[in-house]
């Protein structure tokens, strides 16, 4: 039987969006719980260890991925001409990648 399959895309991104949401939902309460004092020393101590740095960087990555996939959905819904949609995908991907680099830079500057 000849079958016309789908594009076999969409599932991965959909899954990544769910997984990133789960990670954010897990990270936030843990972060809330861990943050010791409110002053500079408290925050400094919190972000000194590598595990917290990594977890926070992962959180930013999850947030940006989640946002980009959501944005992609909105663009597919509303922006139909490919000539507009593709540049917008890349523009936002670039901007979000920039945010990630920036966040990692900030985190690793804590010495």
């Amino acid at each position, binding site marked *: *039987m000849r*079958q016309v*399959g*789908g*594009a076999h895309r*969409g*599932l991965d991104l959909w899954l990544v969006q769910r997984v990133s949401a789960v990670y954010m939902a897990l990270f936030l309460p843990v972060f809330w719980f861990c943050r010791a004092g409110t002053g500079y020393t408290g925050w400094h101590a919190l972000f000194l260890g590598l595990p917290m740095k990594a977890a926070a960087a992962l959180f930013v990555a999850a947030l940006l991925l989640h946002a980009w996939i959501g944005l992609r959905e909105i663009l*597919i*819904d509303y922006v139909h001409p490919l000539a507009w949609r593709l540049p917008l995908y890349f523009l936002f991907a670039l901007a979000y990648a920039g945010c990630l680099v920036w966040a990692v830079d900030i985190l690793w500057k804590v010495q």
Partner: protein
Amino acid sequence: MRFRIYRYDPESIGKPRMQDYEIEFDPQGKKVLDALIALKDGLDESLTFRRSCREGVCGSDGVNVNGRNVLACVTPLEGLKQPIEIRPLPRLPVIRDLIVDMAQFYQHYRAVKPYLINLEPEPESERLQSPEERAELDGLWECILCGCCTTSCPSFWWNPERFLGPAALLQGYRFIADSRDQASGERLDFLEDPYRLFRCHGIMNCVEVCPKGLNPTQAIGKIKTLLVKRAL
């Protein structure tokens, strides 16, 4: 009772317009379809709408009443704010007055192959199912293809040619869930697509309006779960 009804005559050059009607009509125990028939009989025989069974079985009189997609024949007049505004189902081409062209809707329905695919030799009498297997189909087979759900879905409004819509997806799942069907793999292949399936964002307008009380969002969720299971 006062009504405002969408009128469009393809033979005149005029634009679609809303026409006001006023008629003596006792709404007690009566449905929107009864009023439409009374209007056509008593006031304006040019008023055009589809109906057949007039008891919520055939699915032919889906219309938009006061902003909500309903079957005219099972929607009570009592409690509706007047003037009662009746329009054709949204986002489908209007043929005349309240009659829409359902071609796109049926095309999506056909695309999910809404029939059993089983290449084994046919048994003497019938293909048996256990009561549990049969129960899987409840909430799926009852669909009367009225189109109320699909035409209320914003994702369908934005991408009507490519997003299958809740009705077709519900029927797609109806055959995936059928223990006698052997093509669930191909069916899932067909659905794994950013447009056909993944335009659904779980807005749940479809669940909200289905006159049969069905839940397309849940069926769509089950398709996604099967896709994930298959991928992992």
